[in-house]
């Protein structure tokens, strides 16, 4: 779908980026595909690794859902394959349930969603969107991926330890996590790698966004995707280090016998811990389990905004391009996302309402938590209003992006009773919480990720994905994902507790066990549905329709690369930007879009 009439070829003069013309020897396999410093290759590396772990993390939950729907029953087919630390005679063990639960959370957050949203989409698209030839620090970028991958390997390898992987939740609360099996130590080491990777990446993103923009691309002409990535990078930069510190402290507790998080007089299974063997013998005590919670949530709250902000960025781009009109309220979007990023640092203790904090500080965190819902609403509203009066093209990415809006709304609204201390007393640690955050991340962020994949696949591969398979994937996923998470609000309100191996442990949970079965079946069907996506993804690589350089007729710079898929150097010449990012349906123009770099 060539758009040569509207797409004026940028600039003149001798260009950088014609790597193949300069007489340099072509890079070998290893430096081209493995140890590449090119942001596009690194983006793809992140993307593929993250998709593998997204699938793995999902499978962990599918196994857990069997135990939750049919407690005590052997898992069909694969039950016998699970290691001794996880299942016995095909029946999931409590330790195995806890292990899968902890690793599901960890993998989804740190090995799948963030690497997809930031590592994959951020790395690949951001330099293209700002008209740059690469990131500011290409080798640092490579180091970031090669710090990520060992972290993934360590996490994955921990499944095969005799004691199993980490089992104390993705939140790793001590003292439980301090006395857990060796898998927890591996988890901590894996986290150090992953955090390092994020820190290196965030430095790169910020410097690149501020310093490497094409001429004419002022900050307020940046696509919202770039703003979202910029704020996300600040969150990663400033919020991750306390968790790295906390991980070091927990490692010290577990390996050196310190008592940072260990209170005095701890009794495990009727015995005083100080009298046990091993590293805890004679430990000094006096530590604070709450200290871990503070340090953990100081990161983990901004982390959830790291999960959602790139998604908002992706959805914004897809909506703009498929509504053929500018995004409504660009400035309010930008100021909201900046304010959101700032506020995200001062709300963390709303995860700790039940720890007996003083009233004054509880009220403080409740207030900031209520305030932070404001900018989210502004962003959602701006995106919703952007649909008003538009000629909407219901392409597959647009389906996912449109669905994101009400799904994120449900997720956000259900957060309010959790952010208010009074109602949180009842809802804390119930399935309501699980429903809330999954709505934001699963039909929220993951749908946005799918939207992004369907939207940018033509740019990355030069081919279109199959529309029919894509639509089927969307509708079935939409149906089943609501089937998974909607019942959880009712289960939670009835008092069904989360992180419980036996769903029938409390009598009152029996009343909502049927909902749990519905969730499980929806989850398994959702899993089957993803096969459509996987099939589409690989089939289209070879057999998808050729895309041309700008199949969606979009305005932003990533569609103006010299080649599709883009090659090293990206652009024939550094583009000059003459206008804002969403000049769609501009009166007086023949085409219904005016690319950013096109001459006036």
């Amino acid at each position, binding site marked *: 779908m060539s758009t040569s009439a509207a797409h004026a070829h940028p600039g003149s003069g001798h260009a950088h980026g014609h790597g193949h013309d300069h007489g340099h020897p072509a890079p070998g396999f290893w430096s081209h595909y493995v140890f590449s410093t090119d942001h596009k290759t690194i983006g793809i590396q992140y993307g593929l690794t993250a998709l593998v772990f997204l699938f793995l993390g999902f499978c962990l939950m599918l196994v857990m859902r069997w135990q939750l729907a049919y407690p005590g029953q052997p898992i069909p087919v694969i039950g016998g394959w699970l290691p001794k630390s996880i299942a016995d005679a095909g029946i999931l063990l409590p330790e195995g349930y806890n292990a899968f639960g902890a690793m599901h959370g960890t993998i989804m957050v740190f090995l799948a969603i963030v690497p997809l949203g930031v590592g994959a989409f951020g790395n690949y698209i951001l330099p293209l969107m700002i008209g740059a030839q690469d990131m500011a620090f290409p080798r640092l970028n490579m180091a970031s991926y090669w710090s990520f991958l060992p972290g993934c390997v360590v996490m994955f390898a921990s499944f095969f330890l005799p004691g199993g992987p980490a089992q104390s939740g993705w939140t790793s609360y001590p003292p439980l996590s301090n006395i857990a099996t060796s898998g927890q130590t591996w988890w901590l080491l894996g986290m150090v790698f992953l955090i390092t990777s994020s820190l290196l990446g965030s430095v790169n993103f910020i410097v690149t966004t501020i310093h490497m923009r094409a001429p004419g691309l002022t900050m307020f002409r940046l696509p919202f995707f770039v703003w979202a990535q910029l704020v996300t990078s600040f969150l990663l930069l400033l919020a991750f280090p*306390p968790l790295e510190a906390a991980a070091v402290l927990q490692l010290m507790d577990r390996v050196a016998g310190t008592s940072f998080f260990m209170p005095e007089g701890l009794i495990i299974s009727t015995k005083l811990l100080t009298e046990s063997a091993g590293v805890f013998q004679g430990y000094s005590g006096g530590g604070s*389990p709450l200290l871990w919670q*503070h340090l953990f949530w100081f990161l983990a709250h901004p982390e959830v905004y790291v999960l959602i902000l790139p998604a908002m960025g992706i959805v914004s781009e897809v909506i703009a391009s498929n509504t053929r009109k500018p995004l409504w309220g660009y400035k309010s979007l930008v100021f909201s996302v900046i304010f959101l990023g700032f506020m995200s*640092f001062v709300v963390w203790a709303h995860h700790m309402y039940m*720890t007996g904090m003083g*009233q*004054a500080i509880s009220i*403080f965190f409740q207030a900031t938590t209520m305030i932070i819902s404001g900018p989210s609403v502004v962003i959602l509203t701006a995106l919703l209003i952007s649909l008003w009066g538009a000629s909407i093209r219901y392409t597959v990415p647009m389906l996912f992006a449109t669905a994101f809006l009400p799904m994120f709304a449900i997720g956000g609204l259900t957060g309010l009773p959790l952010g208010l201390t009074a109602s949180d007393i009842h809802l804390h640690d119930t399935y309501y919480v699980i429903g809330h955050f999954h709505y934001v991340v699963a039909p929220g962020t993951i749908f946005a990720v799918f939207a992004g994949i369907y939207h940018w696949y033509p740019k990355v591969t030069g081919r279109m994905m199959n529309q029919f398979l894509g639509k089927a994937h969307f509708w079935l996923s939409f149906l089943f994902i609501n089937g998974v998470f909607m019942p959880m609000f009712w289960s939670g309100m009835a008092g069904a507790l989360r992180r419980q191996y036996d769903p029938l442990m409390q009598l009152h949970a029996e009343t909502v066990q049927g909902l749990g079965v519905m969730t499980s079946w929806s989850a398994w069907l959702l899993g089957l549905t993803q096969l459509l996506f996987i099939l589409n993804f690989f089939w289209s690589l070879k057999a998808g329709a050729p895309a041309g350089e700008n199949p969606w007729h979009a305005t932003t710079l990533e569609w103006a690369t010299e080649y599709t898929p883009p090659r090293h150097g990206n652009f024939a010449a550094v583009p000059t930007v003459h206008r804002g990012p969403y000049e769609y349906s501009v009166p007086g123009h023949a085409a219904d879009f005016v690319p950013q770099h096109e001459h006036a």
Partner: protein
Amino acid sequence: MHFANQADAAKHKRTYLMVFGALAVLTVITVAVAKVHLAMPLAVTVAMVVALTKGSLVASVFMHLSTERKALFSVLILCVFFFAVLMTLPVLTTHESVGLVTQKYQPMHGPSHGAAEGGHSDGAAGHSESSSGAAAGKGDGR
């Protein structure tokens, strides 16, 4: 940051050496003051003031912050703000109030206590300030 000429360069060199001297003096001061064993709040204040002075000298002169632009300052101010949040808020969670209470907490008394106890409510309201620190410190997880 290139130097305009010889004199400008020499001036910078002098500044670096003067700051070195100041840092040395401040180090001596902070160690000397510590020997006096002041009360904790005062000792902490003095120590932090001296450390901040030393730190500011290192940051503004050695790290050239005094010649940098606003853009960098905004990033650093943000960082300093979040650092302050990280330093103060966790400790504040161990306090029932932060000095804004207008009415002392009065636990509800059952009917049998009311008349006999009269106006004495202190004993039951022992949750505030100083004791909560110790309770948190014993790490009973509250």
